[in-house]
């Protein structure tokens, strides 16, 4: 049985796709346009490459949105919700995109984590020398 709900929507520049704190669990794929992720009014990420997956953490882990998602230009976005197993079975290309997107974000976050730790160690070493 296919219990995946898929829809497509066009957002105008400035339209809100998802609101921080909201309890929605749609996952999105950018078809065209430009989308930004905002936390406390600060842009933390943006993308314009068709096929980019976003909003997948709320979808997978049933978590409230951790940031605003806003169209920065007219953007066509595919959204889907449903069971992960059904997505893997019926939409393997979306499953692949989710895997690659998560891996990419994890790699970037881990790199930032290492940079912050390195700075921390550096500061501690400098402190101990004084």
């Amino acid at each position: 049985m296919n219990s995946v709900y898929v829809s497509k929507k066009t957002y105008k520049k400035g339209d809100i796709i998802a609101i921080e704190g909201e309890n929605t669990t749609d996952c999105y794929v950018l078809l065209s346009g430009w989308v930004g992720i905002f936390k406390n009014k600060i842009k933390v990420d943006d993308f314009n490459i068709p096929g980019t997956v976003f909003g997948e953490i709320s979808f997978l882990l049933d978590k409230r949105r951790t940031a605003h998602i806003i169209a920065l230009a007219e953007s066509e976005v595919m959204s889907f919700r449903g069971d992960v197993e059904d997505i893997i079975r019926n939409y393997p290309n979306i499953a692949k995109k989710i895997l690659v997107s998560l891996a990419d974000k994890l790699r970037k976050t881990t790199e930032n984590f290492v940079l912050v730790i390195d700075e921390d160690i550096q500061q501690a070493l400098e402190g101990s020398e004084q």
Partner: protein
Amino acid sequence: MISNSVPSDATRSLKKTFNRGAIIAREGDESKEIFILISGRIAVYKKLLKVAEIVEQGAVFGEISLLLGGKRNNSLIAAEDNTEVFILNTTLDNIVKDQQLCKKLIYDLANRLVRTTETLAMLDMEL
């Protein structure tokens, strides 16, 4: 659980035992295998910094190189004697064909991303 995670077709898998300190994969290598922990512990190092430890039986790790291409960005080292690991030689297409493995990988990655992001946010606040 573990046997469900190990794909039988189109994926070559091999079980290997490592002693403490043995290198399972090296940072900078071009290898694309992914690993499933059967028993023991794995330490994840970036240069000389330990960035994570894998202890959960059945955990999938080392998959970033396969998913994104490129060189390994961490070293994986056995953290205790008799650490048993399944080594899978597979492709993204084959992962998606294996419902259980694909689902496990998606959730493992999502949970790790949330944990790393939260830790990073805490460190940022402390600095």
